[in-house]
């Protein structure tokens, strides 16, 4: 097995102001599938091609934003290995008992220097992707909305940028894939724990613990265009796109959920191997780095978080 340690973003728990509106947005418009609910009123969702029981948890709240994001590790040893590395780095950890989220094993919870709550876990109930594991069909019938394949990454705004970068690369073994720099100062860091263009990205900010967006993978550019159609049909607040990013070269569109949490759906971004060079974008070219065609920054995209 080539991929070890931290495997992928396993789920994101988002705070929402109105559960019915939010379930409609995530299930009927984006097209996630509801898999469970719990006594706290949380709703569990997954994308069709994920094997695990859920990748998004909607939590009823009077605030918007991200409660936490959790990454799946390969084995239980990995969980204890990273727990001790995190402690050694000087960050406290807490164990959240198995079953606190239905179908999820014990989680190791900690606050990263940028202020966000992150978790690691090794076990989650697998419910499959709706296809047989023998002679499987390429996709299941009856998908809805934008037909997202998986929860792919989140982009976060936070402070203590250098310390946070050190934590992710040294304690959690993430690899830097792309960055925006202003001279010596790193403004953005795209980080992977796999071979993806990013499994998480951080933008330097004075504010701590902000969610910029939660992102879902689509199959094609045509899917991104169709997402734009759905956004207009359903009167969803559109921010930007469809367009292409310079960073990661993904084809993308941004919009907001009914609580003001930003969503992205995208297709066809780049990939890395452990020996890939880091790609650097310079601050004087930041427009093109972010929106490759217009080369123009969008005020809300730079300034608005939840």
């Amino acid at each position, binding site marked *: 097995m080539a991929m070890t340690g931290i495997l992928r973003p396993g789920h994101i728990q988002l705070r929402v*102001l109105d559960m019915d509106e939010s379930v409609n947005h995530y299930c009927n418009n984006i097209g996630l599938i509801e898999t469970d609910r719990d006594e706290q009123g949380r709703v569990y969702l997954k994308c069709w091609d994920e094997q695990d029981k859920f990748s998004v948890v909607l939590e009823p709240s*009077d605030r*918007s*934003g991200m409660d936490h994001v959790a990454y799946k590790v390969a084995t239980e040893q990995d969980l204890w290995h990273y727990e001790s590395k995190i402690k050694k780095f000087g960050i406290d950890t807490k164990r959240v008992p198995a079953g606190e989220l239905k179908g999820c094993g014990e989680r190791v919870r900690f606050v990263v220097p940028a202020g966000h709550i992150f978790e690691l876990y090794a076990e989650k109930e697998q419910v499959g992707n709706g296809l047989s594991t023998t002679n499987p069909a390429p996709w299941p019938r009856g998908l809805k909305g934008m037909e997202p394949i998986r929860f792919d990454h989140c982009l976060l705004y936070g402070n203590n940028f250098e310390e946070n970068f050190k934590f992710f690369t040294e304690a959690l073994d993430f690899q830097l894939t792309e960055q925006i720099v202003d001279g010596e100062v790193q403004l953005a860091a795209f980080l992977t724990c796999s071979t993806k263009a990013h499994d998480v990205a951080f933008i330097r900010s004075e504010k701590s613990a902000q969610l910029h967006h939660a992102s879902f993978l689509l199959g094609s550019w045509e899917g991104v265009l169709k997402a734009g159609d759905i956004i207009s049909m359903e009167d969803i607040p559109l921010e930007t796109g469809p367009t292409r990013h310079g960073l990661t070269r993904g084809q993308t569109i941004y919009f907001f*959920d009914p609580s003001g*949490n930003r969503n992205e759906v995208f297709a066809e971004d780049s990939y890395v191997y452990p020996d890939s060079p880091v790609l650097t974008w310079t601050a004087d070219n930041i427009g093109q780095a972010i929106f490759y065609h217009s080369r123009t920054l969008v005020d*809300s995209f730079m300034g*608005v978080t939840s």
Partner: protein
Amino acid sequence: MPFQITILDTNEVYSCKETQHLLSGMMQLGKKGIPVGCRSGGCGVCKVKIHQGAYATKKMSRDHVSQDEENSGTVLACRVFPQTNISLSVIGHLHKAVMR
């Protein structure tokens, strides 16, 4: 019938239907820099203070507007739907944009 919304800071007036939130009416003023954020009560860029008029609200994130503020008319424009003519002043990010 649309209602008349007066921005006290500049004495500009725009019209807004009761099915339309106050920010969407303001966006149609076409002013450059009106902070069109999430339009869903989550990001806090569209804070206004309502001085006069009746309105309905949808839930807004408590990170940006406390219950006390909401009770006293400090609200997020994208979560407020007019029921009468309204006069308001703009706060924070929105203030800068409206004044330019």
